[in-house]
C-alpha cells in the first residue's frame, strides 16, 4: 500500500466520520426542541393526572412523582362508593342516540333535497340552513323551560331528542349526494327501487366516509357535552359522565384528588382513542360540521 493510497483513504473517511456524528444531532434541531417542549407542556397535565389517579391523598400532597399505592382504593371509590359506570352507561346511550338519529335524519333530508323536486325547495333548505346561525347555547333558557313543560327532566328524551336534527349533517349529505352521478338513481329507478331502497342499498354504501366523518365529530361532541345535562338532569342516577364526574370530588368534606383523577382518565380515554384513530375522518367532517 502506497502512502498516496493511504492518504486517499484517510481523506475519504474523514467526512463520513463527521457525517455519523452529525446525524446524531437531528436536522433542524430547533424544530425538534420546540416540538419536544410543546409535547411536554401538553402532556404534563395528563401525565400528572395519571400519577395522581394511583395515589392516596397523602401521597398527592407529598407531590410524589411516581405511581402511588392508592389505585385500588381509588377504584373502589369510583365504581363502588360512587357510580361512574352508571354515568358511563348513560353517556353511551346518549352519545349513541344522538349520533345514530342525527345520521339517519340527515341522510333522509339529504335524500329529499337532492333526489326530489318540490315547490319551495329553496325555502325549506334555507329554513334548515339558517339554523347554523342559532347556537343552542343562546336559546338554552327557553329550551330548558320547554323541556320542563314537556316534563322531560331527568329522561333520555331530554338528552337526545333536541340534538337529533342537524343542518350541517343535512348539508354534508346534500353535497355528497349531489356529487354522485345522476345515472345511479336513474338506473335504480329503472330497476324499480323506491327512494328508501335507493338510499340504503346504493347511497349509504357509497357514503361511508361522509357518515364516518359526521359520526366521529358527533360522538366526541355528545360525549363531552356538559352544560345541557348539567341543567336538565338532577337525578343522580341519570347523570352523564361530564357532570357525574364532579361527584367524585368530595368525600368526607375534603377534596379527594385520587378518585377524581382516576375518573377523569377513564372518562377521557374513549374520545381520545376515537380521535387519534379517526383523525382523517374527523378533519373532513369538521370542516363542514361545527358542533351541531
Amino acid at each position, binding site marked *: 500500500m502506497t502512502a498516496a493510497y493511504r492518504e486517499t483513504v484517510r481523506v475519504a473517511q474523514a467526512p463520513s466520520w463527521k457525517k455519523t456524528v452529525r446525524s446524531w444531532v*437531528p*436536522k433542524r434541531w430547533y424544530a425538534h426542541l*420546540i*416540538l419536544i417542549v*410543546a*409535547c411536554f407542556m*401538553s402532556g404534563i*397535565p395528563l401525565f*400528572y393526572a395519571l400519577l395522581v389517579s394511583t395515589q392516596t391523598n397523602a401521597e*398527592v400532597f407529598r*407531590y410524589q412523582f411516581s405511581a402511588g399505592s392508592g389505585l385500588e382504593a381509588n377504584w373502589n371509590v369510583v365504581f363502588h362508593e360512587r357510580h361512574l359506570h352508571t354515568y358511563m352507561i348513560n353517556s353511551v346511550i346518549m352519545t349513541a342516540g344522538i349520533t345514530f338519529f342525527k345520521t*339517519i*335524519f340527515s341522510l*333522509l*333530508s339529504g*335524500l*329529499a333535497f337532492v*333526489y*326530489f*323536486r318540490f315547490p319551495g325547495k329553496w325555502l325549506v333548505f334555507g329554513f*334548515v340552513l339558517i*339554523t347554523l*346561525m342559532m*347556537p343552542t*347555547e*343562546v*336559546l*338554552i*333558557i*327557553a*329550551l*330548558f*323551560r*320547554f323541556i*320542563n313543560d314537556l316534563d322531560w327532566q331527568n329522561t333520555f328524551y331530554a338528552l337526545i331528542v*333536541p340534538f*337529533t*336534527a342537524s343542518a350541517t349533517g343535512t348539508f354534508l349529505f346534500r353535497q355528497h349526494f349531489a356529487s354522485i352521478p*345522476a345515472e*345511479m*338513481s336513474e338506473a335504480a329507478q329503472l330497476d324499480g327501487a323506491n*327512494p328508501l331502497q335507493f338510499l340504503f342499498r346504493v347511497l349509504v354504501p357509497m357514503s361511508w366516509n361522509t357518515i364516518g366523518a359526521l359520526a366521529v365529530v358527533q360522538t366526541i361532541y355528545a360525549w*363531552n357535552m*356538559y*352544560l345541557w345535562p*348539567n*341543567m336538565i338532569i338532577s337525578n343522580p342516577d341519570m347523570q352523564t359522565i*361530564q357532570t357525574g*364526574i*364532579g361527584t367524585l370530588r368530595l368525600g368526607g368534606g375534603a*377534596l379527594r384528588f385520587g378518585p377524581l383523577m382516576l375518573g*377523569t382518565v377513564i372518562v*377521557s380515554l374513549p*374520545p381520545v382513542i376515537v*380521535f*387519534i384513530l379517526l*383523525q382523517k375522518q374527523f*378533519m373532513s367532517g369538521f*370542516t363542514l360540521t*361545527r358542533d351541531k
Partner: protein
Amino acid sequence: MVVSPVVLMIMGAVVGAAALAFVFRRAGGRPLIGLGIGAIAGAFGSALFMVPLDYCTFEAERQSLDRVFGMIFVLAGIALVVTPVSWLSGKLLRRESLMADDQTQGTFRHWWIALPLLAPTLTILVLFLYYPSLETLRLSTMLSRLGARREVFVCVDNFTRLVNDPAYVDTFVRTMFISFSIVVLSMSLSLLIASMAYLPLRGASIYRILLVWPYAMSPAVAGIIFLLMFNPSGGLVNHLFGKWFGIKLGWLNDPAVAPWTIILASVWKSMGFNILFYIAGLQNVPKDLIEAGAIDGAGLLRRFWHIVWPMLSPITFFLIVTNLTYAFFETYATIDYLTPGGGPLQSTTTMMYRVIQLGVQNNDMGKAAAQSIVLFLTVIGMTIVLFRTGGRQVNYGV
C-alpha cells in the same frame, strides 16, 4: 304615545321603498313595482317587533332610553324583512336559480315523498330550535319564573337595565378579554408549533399525535385537571413555584389571576384542534412558491408573511370563527369546575355563565333570556364583522 305607530310605519315604508327601488333598477325591473313592494315590506318590518311589544317603548311615561331601544327594534325589524325581500327579488329579476346546483336529472317522481323524508329534521328544528328562539324573544320582555307560573310584561326593561348595570358592563368586557385572549394565544402558539410539526422531520407522526390529542378532552375535564394542578392550597404548580421562586399565586381565588387560569386551561385544551388544522393548511402551501421566494432572496419572516400567511387565510378564518364560538360558549364547563360560582368577585363569570346563573340558579328567566339575546347579537355581530373585513381578503386559492 309619543311616536305613533303610523309614523313608524311610514318611516319603514320609505326605507323599504328606497332599498327595493334601487334593487329593481339595478336588476333591470320596473322601479315603481320595487317602490311598492319595498313600502309594504318596510311598513311590515317596522311592526315586526313592535306589535308583539304593543309599541310599549313609545308610551308617554317611558324614558328616552326606552325610546332608543324601541327605535333599534324598529330598525332591526325593517332590516330583517327588507333584506331578504330585496335579496329574493334581485335573484328573481335576474332569473337566477334560487338554489344553486339543483339536480334536475335522476330525481324521483311523486314529489310529496320528500315530505316524510324531511319531516323528522324539520319537526326537531321547529320544536327545539325555532320555537325556543321565539320563546327567548318573548321571555326577554317578561318577568318570569319557572316554578310559580306568573309572568308580567315588562316591555324592554330587561334590556335597558343592562345598559345601566355596571356589573353587566364588567361581565361584557371580561368576556371579551377572556375570549380574545384564548383565541389569540391559542392560535398564534398553534401556528408556531404547527410550522415546526409539518416539516418532514424524523418522528413527525408521533409528534403530531402527541400534540393534537388534547382536543378530544372535554372542557369539563380540562377544568378538572387544571384544578388538580392549580388549586392554591395543594396544587402542584404553587408547590413548585413556592419551591423555586418563593411565590405562591392565588390561581383560583385571586380575582386578578383567576381569569388567566381559565385562559390557560382553555388554550391547553383548544390548541390540539388548531394545530391539526394548521398542519393540514401548511401542507397545502405549494413548496415551489416558497422556494421561489427563497431564490428571490426573501428571508424567513418575509416568506412567511407574504407567501405562507396569505395562503393560510381560509384556515385562519375558519379557526377564528370556531375558536370564538368555543371561547364564548364551551368554556362554561371549564369555568364551572375550576371556579364554581363564577370565581372570586365574579372575576371568571362570562356572559354565558351569567345567563345560566340568572336563568337556572336565580330562576329569573326574563333577564336570562334578554342576556342570551345580547350574547347572540355579540357573537353574530363579530362573525359578520369578520366576514366583512377578513372574508373579502381571504385567499381561496388553496
